[in-house]
């Protein structure tokens, strides 16, 4: 990319001789594609003379956050660390600037994802049992490639099918810190008595069957 030109005059920015950790952090945060843990931020400051401890880094993050108070982006902290994010108020503008709309996720994909999220670790056969239809290889691939699910092991049954679970990326993409911040699953209603189609009082269903429904709250992430 030789033809790249800088719109600012080609002088070195005045802050460069002694960058100051605020600018170092800014650079690192903008360059990263994922949230940056504080320890990595400290490591970045250790280069050259900008060395700083954790406390100084956190103070500098505070100043940095302040600096962007009136801008279109904000510094946010999630479980994985810090990152810059476009403020919600500007989402519409960002969408308008994108010629290609992001694809909508199909219902089949969303249902599969939901089952993995709430039932993990789960095999493909188990997903199919709940959905009542085959889960296409395509869907599993898409979920894997988006980095939302991965295989965490194999079930010790014939064929040793892969056990799927959601990833850190999945949580990050939904802005969640932990799995149990997902909205709770609706409760299963206990059924006591089936109205007779013909008669025949129905036996009370055992609840603790196959799927272990009692323990449905998603366990907090691995």
């Amino acid at each position: 990319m030789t033809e790249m030109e800088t719109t600012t005059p080609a002088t070195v920015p005045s802050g460069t001789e002694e960058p100051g950790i605020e600018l170092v952090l800014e650079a690192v945060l903008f360059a990263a594609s994922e949230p940056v843990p504080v320890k990595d931020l400290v490591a970045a400051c250790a280069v050259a003379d900008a060395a700083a401890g954790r406390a100084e880094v956190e103070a500098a993050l505070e100043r940095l956050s302040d600096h962007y108070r009136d801008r279109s982006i904000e510094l946010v902290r999630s479980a994985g660390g810090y990152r810059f994010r476009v403020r919600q108020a500007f989402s519409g503008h960002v969408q308008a600037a994108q010629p290609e709309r992001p694809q909508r996720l199909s219902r089949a994909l969303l249902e599969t994802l939901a089952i993995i999220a709430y039932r993990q670790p789960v095999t493909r056969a188990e997903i199919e049992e709940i959905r009542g239809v085959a889960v296409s290889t395509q869907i599993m691939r898409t979920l894997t490639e988006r980095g939302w699910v991965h295989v965490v092991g194999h079930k010790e049954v014939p064929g040793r099918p892969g056990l799927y679970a959601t990833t850190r990326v999945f949580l990050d993409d939904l802005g969640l810190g932990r799995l149990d911040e997902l909205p709770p699953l609706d409760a299963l209603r206990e059924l006591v008595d089936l109205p007779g189609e013909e008669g025949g009082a129905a036996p009370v269903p055992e609840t603790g069957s196959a799927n272990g429904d009692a323990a449905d709250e998603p366990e907090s992430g691995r």
Partner: protein
Amino acid sequence: MTETEVVEFEPEAGEVAEAGWSCRVHGSPMEALPVDLYIPPDALEVFLESFEGPLDLLLYLIRRQNLDILAIPIAEITRQYMAYIEVIQALRLELAGEYLVMAALLAEIKSRVLLPRPPASTEEEEDPRLALIRQLQEYERFKTAAERLDAMPRLERDVFHAHAARDALLGPPAPAPALEDLMDALVAVLRRAGLHAHHQISAEALSVRERMARILGTLEEREGFVDFVNLLAVDEGRPGVVVAFLAVLELSKAGLLEWGQGEPFGPIQVRRRAQAAAPE
């Protein structure tokens, strides 16, 4: 929904999965579609696609009538389900096997519920509806959960991270892929693409494609018209000219170029299409 007719479904024993059934109204084969089911055939296809499987269709039938899952009248729901299947098959629409399996299951449940049970076995047998009800409930929870997941603000759709490019940065470059890795990857793609007949990766001469890219780049840099002959790489000898010429033709075919000639017998000129409107 007032039903005066009785639509009966008769699975021929053992052949359910092969769809060897018929639909009878008052004992004679059904010819017209049930009135409450009438959906224009085109719409039906769309309609069918909007279901995620037999459980989803069943849920729809139940919800449509404001019935409680816990109290589904199995005979009635079975009747409606079968009618749908029948209509779909009558229209020769593709139907996933799962729908037929469910049909078989419903038929079986219905027969077990309606048949008087021998007193001896009553305590042993679970109501055959229970398993289905559980399955429906279970499916519905996840269906709802999926809708909620979709409604949550999602990265790159509703939420955007702020980042800056780092290509100005020096430093250890990411490892270049070994040629074999690249080939392996391509083989994998081709193998998959082969599964869908409509994806054809044709074996065009790479030099032409490369030149297409290069010419586009050249035209992007120089705004406005460029003399056509200047695009032909004369310094690369005859093969170079031919390749460049083919590349220009390909680009032209793809609608990426615009041609012009200022005066009769003047130089033929080329520019990128629609770029004139956007001077940079």
